[in-house]
């Protein structure tokens, strides 16, 4: 991929696809998570070395993020999903409405993910909890998909979860 590095040293991700919708529409049906993750996964996987496997993995990871956004308790605002690419890494930017106190929750969750014991914490959660918390969902992305995560502020009461997925490298 012919991307160049910007002055800060962060590589330039090439935009691939973007879907925007009213959060109200999105949360009106659970199956939207499945639709959107499946659709986008297929679209962006076509020129990966193994499109079918890439699409399956991508959809699997992306669906979890959408489910997190789905469970947000807000009735107003926009959901924006953007996927961009730099070499073997696909970047998902998921923007959704979020109150300040919740934003703090995501920021802390993402910090935890970076921690050394991420894997151990993930294991403990599987053996201990009844249902996965949002934090664990993010943790799992790091543990099982080698994802790198961060949170960015977005306009209005919204945040953007930025998730870099190096799925191409995860294949055979």
């Amino acid at each position, binding site marked *: 991929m012919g991307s160049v590095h910007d002055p800060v040293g962060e590589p330039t991700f090439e935009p691939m696809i973007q879907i925007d919708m009213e959060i109200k529409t999105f949360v009106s049906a659970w199956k939207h998570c499945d639709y959107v993750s499946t659709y986008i996964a297929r679209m962006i996987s076509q020129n990966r070395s*193994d499109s079918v496997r890439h699409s*399956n993995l991508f959809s699997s990871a992306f669906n979890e993020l959408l489910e997190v956004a789905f469970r947000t308790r807000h009735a107003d605002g926009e959901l924006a999903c953007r996927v961009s690419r730099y070499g073997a890494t696909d970047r998902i930017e998921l923007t959704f409405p979020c109150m300040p106190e919740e934003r703090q929750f995501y920021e802390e969750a993402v910090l935890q993910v970076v921690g050394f014991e991420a894997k151990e914490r993930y294991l403990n959660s*599987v053996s201990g909890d009844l249902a996965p918390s949002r934090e664990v969902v993010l943790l799992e992305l790091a543990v099982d998909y080698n994802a790198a995560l961060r949170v960015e502020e977005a306009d209005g009461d919204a945040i953007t979860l930025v998730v870099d997925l190096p799925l191409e490298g995860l294949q055979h």
Partner: protein
Amino acid sequence: MSPYNLHARFKAQYDANNQEFSISGVVRPQAIDELGPSLALLRDAIGRVRGVLYVNVRRLAQMNNAAFYAFSRIIIDACRARPDLKFVVITSSVVGWTSRKFGRLSGIEPNITVEEYDSEFYPGQGFLEEGGFVPILRTQTKMTWRHERAILPRHGMRPGIVMADICCGIGDFAVLVQKEFQPSRIVALDHSISSLDYARRVMREFDIRGIEYTYGDASEMLLDEEQFDLVTCRHSLQIFNRPELILKELYRICKPGGRVYITNEKNSHCLGEPRAESIRWTYNEVAKLFAHFEMDVELGPKSRRYLIEAGFDDIRVETFTVTNLDGDVQDFADVIVAWADVYAGEMATKRGDGAEFVARFRQGFQDHIFAALHPKGYAGWPIWVASGRRPQ
């Protein structure tokens, strides 16, 4: 791309004979109650088994964390309540996330083991995949292509279609089709990573576009239903001990009104002159040798029956014979040398054949080569082509 499937998307089953609980499809519930019956089935299965419960997730395409937790919870609780019980979770190397995700369970409870089901999809995999078969497949495809390029349009091949080549091997056929017929998209699937690597390298080096190589198991593919106008599967049904399972998958991914195209051999009908007798004897033995390893290289003429039984209509069957007169006679001879190497070599040894048998067995191949190279000789390798339409 096929329209999104709205129907029930997963299935859970318990097979008491094998003590195996399996769950397949796409499992993405919003709330755990949606899984009620499947979770009950798992609990019930745990209550009945002794020793080991197999949990088969090979055909699980997707499962969200909510569902994963619900199933894991039951298994982990059972381990704690019944230390006598062991769980073996069977994942698939094809579905990338399953081994990672389910693999974690063994780190939680020692009584859970996770096995990636991978090798031995078909009985002779070792011989054909690891053996020196790649160059032979190449030459074989070159020889059959001379015939198939004229035959394919009678079986649904035309420009602009969406097609799949299942068990694509090193991808030569897909490349030839791409050049000759320009379909809009080709998905080419195989279960040999080394063959796919080779295919991808060729694609890069020759800057070929429009072919998507994918790693998969032909008997349970991640491909969606009703996607392809034409599904080809060449020289491969004959190497599976249960070809009907593969055909079922080919049918599933084929569009209604689309066609499935298969080619197979009837090895005992390989022929040559002079030395016809020796040649005939050896190729009869080839068929028996493959049968010993549960492969049916006599499948060619049975194609019609297989296609009918799989639900196809408008079935078309034809045969052609690759001969020493087609093109480069040395190609023909090279292929036979390679067959002799594998059949009279590794395979015969594995069956435990004695020296005397092997000598006579080899002689037939040598005679076939002799016939091919003989100035007045004739040597042939017959192929059966068949296709059927998936009803509208």
